[in-house]
């Protein structure tokens, strides 16, 4: 096994085009587990840890462009204000050690249905930027992830960044785990208010082959907010509306039963989380914090 350590993106892409099957590694918090469990024996590993371009973030046409190698710890510290939903999700990831190493780029690379970094990207219609020696393309996250641990990364291609609008309203993320820290999501819900678009976006995680946007729930609540003119004159949402929203979030989910939880529980739980995250975000909006 060759361990290759490019120091620039160009060099990394050269390597990738020479060895399209090489395994990239950022924080290694997924890769090392795979190697330790003997699930993977790549001929080459490409350590992207020295590629400075991947560690950058900045503004680009009203959106944030965040390098694939930005760790959860940095997301929380540097971008917590601008991306509160992703920051809440980042705080639920693993332990301090994992957050110091793990990256959203790696989370995208793994494309696990349980990836905590993913639902917050879905509710903000983030794009994933992919590069290869052929060039650069940007794909909506929903199209990037194609199935459980499957994505549309082509051989020789790397994830260079993701693009996401700064929050313009309250955002939430809630994750069920059987224990109170260091746990893989049994299921989760991300939710974001987009006041300028008069939209509430919701996405279930770990309750289907990929994260799934709860579009019926979104349409339902958009109607309720519209009808009551609530975006302009915010008032607390009634229990019935919250509950109905939760039910519709639940209906979006397509969970399985496994060691972490039953399908029935996941359905129930995403419903409750849908209801609660909407309540928290909406109350926040009413409180005028944004």
């Amino acid at each position, binding site marked *: 096994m060759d361990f290759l350590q490019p120091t620039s993106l160009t060099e990394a892409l050269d390597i990738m085009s020479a060895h399209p099957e090489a395994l990239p590694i950022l924080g290694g918090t997924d890769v090392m*587990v795979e190697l*330790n*469990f*003997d699930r993977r024996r790549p001929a080459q590993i490409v350590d992207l840890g020295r590629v400075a371009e991947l560690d950058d973030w900045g503004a680009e046409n009203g959106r944030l462009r965040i390098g694939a190698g930005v760790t959860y710890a940095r997301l929380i510290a540097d971008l917590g204000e601008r991306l509160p939903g992703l920051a*809440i999700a980042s*705080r*639920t990831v693993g*332990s301090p050690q994992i957050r110091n190493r793990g990256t959203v780029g790696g989370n995208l690379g793994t494309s696990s249905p349980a990836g905590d970094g993913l639902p917050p990207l879905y509710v903000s219609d983030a794009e994933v930027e992919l590069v290869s020696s052929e060039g650069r393309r940007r794909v909506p996250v929903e199209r990037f992830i194609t199935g459980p641990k499957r994505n549309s990364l082509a051989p020789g291609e790397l994830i260079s960044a993701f693009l996401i609008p700064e929050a313009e309203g309250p955002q*939430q*993320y*809630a*994750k*069920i*785990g*059987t*224990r*109170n*820290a*260091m*746990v*893989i999501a*049994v299921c989760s819900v991300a939710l974001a208010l987009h006041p300028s678009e008069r939209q509430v976006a919701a996405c279930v995680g770990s309750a289907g082959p990929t994260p799934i946007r709860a579009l*019926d729930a979104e*349409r*339902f609540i958009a*109607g309720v907010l519209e009808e009551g003119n609530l975006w302009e004159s915010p008032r607390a949402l009634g*229990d*019935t*509306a919250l*509950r*109905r929203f939760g*039910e*519709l979030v*639940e*209906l979006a989910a397509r969970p399985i*039963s496994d*060691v*972490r*939880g*039953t*399908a*029935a*529980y996941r*359905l*129930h*739980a995403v419903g*409750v*989380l849908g209801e*609660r995250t909407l309540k*928290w975000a909406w109350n926040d909006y009413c409180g005028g914090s944004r």
Partner: protein
Amino acid sequence: MRTTPLPRPAPAPVQRPGVVGETTTRIDGGPKVKGEFEYSSDLWADGMLWGATLRSPHPHATIWSIDISRALALPGVYAVLTHEDVPGRKVYGMEIPDQPVLAWERARYQGEAIALVAADHPETARRACDAIDVAYEVLEPLSDPERAMAADAPKLHLSGNVLRHITLRHGDQAATADVVMTGEYEVGSQDQAFLGPESGLAVPDGDGGVDLYIATQWLHVDRDQLAESLGLSPEQVRLTMAGVGGAFGGREDLSMQIHACMLALHTDRPVKIVYNREESFFGHVHRHPCRMHYEHGATRDGELVYVKARIVLDGGAYASSSTAVCSNAACFACGPYNVPSATVDCSVVYTNNPPCGAMRGFGAVQVAFGHESQMDKLAAALGIDPVELRIKNALAPGHRLPTGQVVREPAPVAELLERLRAMPLPPDASPGPRDLRELPGGVSNTTHGEDVRRGIGYGVGFKNVGFSEGFDDYATARVALSLDGDGDPLVSVHTAAAEVGQGVVTVQAQIARTELQVERVAVLTADTQVGSAGSSSASRQTYMTGGAVKMACEAVRERLLQRVADHAGLDPFDLSLAGGAVIDSRGETVATLAEALVSAPIEETVEFHHAETYPLDENGQGDAHLQLAFSAHRAVADVDTRLGLVRVVELATTQEVGKALNPQALDGQIDGGSAQGLGLALLEEIQIRDSQVLNASFTDYLLPTILDMPPVKKQVLEHPDPDAPYGLKGVGEPPNISTPPAVVAALRSACSRELARIPVRPEQLAGIDEPRRSRPPAPGSRGPAGARPTRS
């Protein structure tokens, strides 16, 4: 002739321990915290090979053939061994040798060892394992212990599937009661989950013998089994304790010991084996899963009249210590209560599930969940406070156990409960926004207080200390009092007691310091060059090895006083030890230790046997147990009743310890035992379906984290046991026994559900047991408030 130098354990560090009763910082504590401690997985010898084990992927299969030729042909592979290469007895087992060293003809559980490889690199060894061709015929596994007991079930062993059945009949078997309460309970399979995986290093001595550096709980029982299976005399098999990364019962059985020695003897090279985490789950026995049916009869005012229990323990594929676990489950099935009549039937059976054996609490943990759940149910039915009901029926000295054995002092069950109840409760949650870490779900952000209800629950438990049922339980200690190079007195203590993290090294030093009044003590590395210490299990090591060290020190002291008396022409009975000198009855120094020891050091080796115990008769009657240890727990838990998530706010406990030898180490045992009990109540289960393990990793076998485990408030009682050294009681296991029922009682009181099985899953707590798929109402429809899709 030996070609490889033996790894040299560092010389025993000199400690300056406090006396018995004084908190003494553990000598291994600093290095462990700093990552400097050498665990068995860190062992190294020049030129060593790496061993790996091929395991059966099938829980039940016929093995038609094993072809090792491809594996042997791989470069870097030095040996590939199968059952045909086992030099001696082909089976092993502490109590019943029924487990193949390497399987032949049949594999009886998933993960059973089939073949061994030694190679120059661990990766090569693993790849060689993959190149061994085993022809299996997969058989249907016998997964259900109830089914295994049926007359027509296929036999997994020639002796049949029932490994042991205990019939216990005590008192009036026709007793009737005003109030009758029944219940069914189940306990899942907990793993010891020690952090240091199984590992060791075998070094051939060049003359056919072998030295093994190993993390184990009982060196001598390992040695004896090794000698049998290697076809060597016990003298040819020498064991030295290597750093143990936790044990909790999981290192009582052999894992890689025989395998490493076989490979080392075969290749004439040192061989190291280290399991990884996944292999570790298959490499040791687990806590017995258990199903219990209880019936309690009581008078209207809450006096227990009878207890009936039918208990089935799943022993898995091999015997391990199942027969003793079965005895404990039967003996302690009724709880620490005065039960006039008892009818207990307890079985442990073979299945194709992972083998089960010793784990902290050893049979008492499972039944404590049963009897305590019953006490709560009974209290509710009678309208009596659950603590009051327990106190009313509390076991006390003079009562008889359901085995007929009379309970001796101290057995302050009522006092433990009264003191526990009197301990202040944690304050209610403050109103207003709360730190997420204080809420169920923690930073996962699942509730900001919605649907959170608080519950309080109590549990009390007990178990035996030391080995029971007539086993001649003993420990050996060699104590030497000498002058070191500087002419300063030094006590050396040599025993084979396994330091598994409980602090036995430090406690031995404290005892030597106390008895010989010498400040400097060195506890030598445990090995088989001194006699057996027995196992570091059954909460017995401070009692037994501590007792042996005390006795050896007394013998050394006696000889010292005799020597000084002879020299000075005095009566030894007029002399005593104080402040590093031998003094007479007026306090005058007769000789300093330096003077007394200059001619020769004094060394004594003793065996300390505990008082005799007796087997149970056909009705489960007999004085089977040496000492009983008791503890009680109170749990306060916040439950998100809609999501079924939990935060245990506080654990409080009272425990009878007889005498706290090292208060800090005692705290550690209580904290750790409570955490392990909380883990069993809420999280820790090896999930098994059709005898296959589904979660052999710490990703899905969840241990409590610091955010799951609250601080533990403790009160220890120190009523001395007149028969025990310093009056002490074993302390390691009780906290693990009384925690789970207390936690579950708190959950029940918060969510008002039955919760008949541990670990309790969020599904159970939230009442989502049934598979369900909601029928989609029309999108966008508001639906009436009550029209939530089916919810059980």
